[in-house]
């Protein structure tokens, strides 16, 4: 097992480039608590090391990663310099690693659920732009059910059901009617936005959702509570965060270690071949798309009854689309996608804490996750290998 893992480690120039990226990040990190180097010399020195590593990698032909290391080095020097210039009090207030990591997990969870949904759907060959709408449907119907039925379990179930139903509409239009998948998915977003907004106003009016709605509970790990660093992060996480982590593992097992996953992927790669060997393309795609809606619905329910405990019109704020970017950058693989989702979660968590510096400029940092998505999509996409038949309607023979 260990040997297999070792065999997968990068070698040669790739390893140099990756080391360069890590060193570039370290250039920034050294200026932050707890080390908090106050002289700009430290980030500069370490950053230059990253530049050298990156340049070496580029000269040896590892272009993309090498340039990544150079960018990381430059960013490390710049950010590190800024950090050495800002006051210690500010730094201590903003950079509380355990709080940042806990917030990262909270922000990443809806993305992970939606991205897993996207992976299932797209692995079966159906693009799912409608994730945003399914998240929103899950958020609204989740909180509605939790409120009216006075149970968060039922809230979760109804949220999954709502997400699944919207996904079913998308599936029907894009599989049976062979509508353009992007347009049909986009229509789902509009439908969900209109329907949830309409019902929200109709049922809750101007006051918004009540405050005494049953919430998804946190998981208390009392033995962890006193541990240094890990305690504050993992001690009291919401149940859904653990479920998200479990779902990632489960999704990987199903997709890559079971016959079902093999069938699903073959439908997404070459539907005709799959049908020839007796796999029903339509049934597989229906199942995958519906599952993606169920997962997105759960992610939405976490948003409304696990995270912020209220609902607002259009509260998902583009998270479904970020999840889509996560799917692409994660190369349609659950673990990679989860890592990317954590990266986005971290940027959101950071944006949340930056108002300590400047109220008005902090607004600008709200754009951080979106800028990051743009950069990552632009940087990674040439390297991504989508399922061969994704987005193509299939006509039964």
């Amino acid at each position, binding site marked *: 097992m260990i040997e297999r893992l070792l065999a997968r480690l990068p070698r040669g120039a790739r390893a140099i480039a990756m080391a360069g990226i890590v060193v570039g990040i370290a250039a920034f990190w050294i200026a932050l608590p707890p080390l908090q180097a106050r002289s700009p010399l430290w980030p500069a020195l370490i950053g230059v090391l990253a530049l050298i590593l990156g340049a070496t990698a580029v*000269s*040896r*032909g590892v272009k993309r990663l090498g340039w990544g290391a150079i960018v990381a080095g430059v960013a490390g020097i710049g950010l590190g310099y800024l950090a050495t210039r800002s006051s210690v009090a500010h730094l201590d207030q903003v950079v509380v690693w355990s709080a940042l990591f806990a917030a990262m997990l909270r922000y990443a969870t809806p993305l992970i659920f939606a991205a897993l949904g996207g992976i299932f759907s797209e692995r079966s060959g159906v*693009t799912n*732009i409608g994730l945003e709408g399914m998240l929103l449907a899950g958020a609204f119907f989740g909180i509605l059910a939790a409120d009216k039925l006075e149970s968060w379990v039922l809230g979760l179930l109804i949220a999954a059901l709502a997400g699944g139903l919207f996904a079913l*509409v998308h599936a029907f*239009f894009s599989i049976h*009617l*062979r*509508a*353009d*998948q*992007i*347009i*049909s998915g*986009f*229509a*789902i*977003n*509009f*439908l*969900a*936005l*209109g*329907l949830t*907004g*309409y*019902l929200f*106003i*109709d049922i809750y009016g101007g006051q918004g959702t009540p405050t005494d709605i049953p919430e998804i509970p946190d998981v208390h790990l009392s033995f962890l509570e006193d541990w240094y660093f890990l305690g504050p992060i993992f001690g009291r996480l919401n149940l859904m965060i653990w479920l998200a982590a479990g779902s990632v593992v489960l999704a990987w097992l199903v997709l890559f270690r079971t016959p079902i996953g093999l069938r699903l992927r073959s439908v997404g790669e070459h539907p005709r071949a799959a049908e020839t060997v007796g796999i029903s393309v339509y049934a597989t795609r229906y199942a995958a798309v519906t599952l993606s809606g169920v997962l997105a619905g759960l992610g939405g329910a976490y948003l409304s009854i696990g995270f912020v405990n209220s609902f607002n*019109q259009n509260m998902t*704020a*583009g998270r479904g*689309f970020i999840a*889509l*970017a996560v799917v*692409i950058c994660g190369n349609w693989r659950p673990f990679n996608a989860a890592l990317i989702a954590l990266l986005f979660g971290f940027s959101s968590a950071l944006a949340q804490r930056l108002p300590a510096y400047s*109220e*008005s*400029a902090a*607004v*600008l940092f*709200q*754009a951080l996750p*979106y*800028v990051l*998505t*743009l950069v990552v*999509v*632009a*940087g990674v*996409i*040439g390297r*991504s290998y*989508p399922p*061969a038949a*994704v*987005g*193509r309607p299939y006509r039964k023979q």
Partner: protein
Amino acid sequence: MSEVEGGPPPEGPGRKAEEPRQGGDYAPSAAGRLALWQKAGGLAVPLLTTLFAFLIGGLVVLITTGKNPLTTYKAIFEGSGLNWFLEVGSYEIRLPFTDTYVFFPWNTNDFESLAALNLQQTLIIWVPLVLTGLAVAFAFRCGMFNIGGQGQYLVGAIIAVWIGSSLEGLPASLHIIIAVVAGALMGALWAGIAGLLKALVGAHEVISTIMLNWIALWVGVYLFSLGGPLQNDTQPSVPVSNDILEESKLKVFWGDPLLQGLHVGFFVALAALVVYWITLNRTTLGYEVRAVGFSPEAARYGGISVARNYFLAMAISGMFAGLAGALDILGWQFRINTNDVTTSTIGFTGIAVALLGRNTSIGVMLSGLLFAALIVGTSTRNLDPEIFRPELATNLTTLIQGLVILFVGADVLILWLLHKARLRRRAPA
């Protein structure tokens, strides 16, 4: 190792054109279906689509509120001012920019008539809807789905409000032209980012334009929020921009300028419809754009640079949306606050306008009118709350938009139904 370092692949236009293939392969564009769309018979599909959407919207009204959907729709219709066309009078209308009056059979001449006032509002909204609709439609013709109309509209509006409120002392016409052109160019730039990413690395335009929407939104909120760089100079506690100067406001040619009459941007929108048609159907650029839209492979084989057209089509489409933002500011909003920035949905409605209008000039014009009427008719100001709550009706509009997009996207369904009906009719004969 020397092999890797050795001959780098030739970096010519031909080589560059190869690269977007991967992005194109992910969720292939709507281009293939466009052929069908353009062929599929005339008006039948959009009309049936609209009917379907309103039918389902009516069902929602009936189920959730128990009210008669027809009464609701009638109230929305009257709120939109379209009933003005029913009050045929025999009066005159003032020609724009002049003091001459000409005979105009429809004008009831009472500018204060409720229908006329409402219709002015509808047409004011029609202007940006047509332009953002064209923005979506142009990209569609090149096989791309530009969801970024909202962001392009916002950056156009932001730059227009900035220029309109500064540069004192310029002659009025020049001031307006600079502001409008800057708005359009800013929109082009914003969309161009997505076009460039698609052309160079194959980043899917749906994701990049949506991210650009959110970035534009937060930049706008930042600029006009308290303490932001473009926040009002005289009212430090209100998150709003400066008012644009008097001389940079567009002329109102129908109605009372104080009551938000119809501004001359109306003619710009009309002109844009013509320009759109000419560019697509009578120029080399339009030919190449459409060729890429139908089949990037074939276009590349025919010697057309796919990457270049992706970029150009995106930039031009952003230009339309940026123009919409600039005209809205100079024509009737005059200022922009952070709330406008976050709640405006004009650019998204443009998607429904383009899809229902089947990406044609005339189609966009008509579907723009439909959605403008829906938006104005369901606004808090125009919809009688006794009949239907406007907050609900706004969401009803979104719902109907979604249904329209869904059904238009699946026009195969409607074509198939038509086909079935035709077969059945033929069978007994």
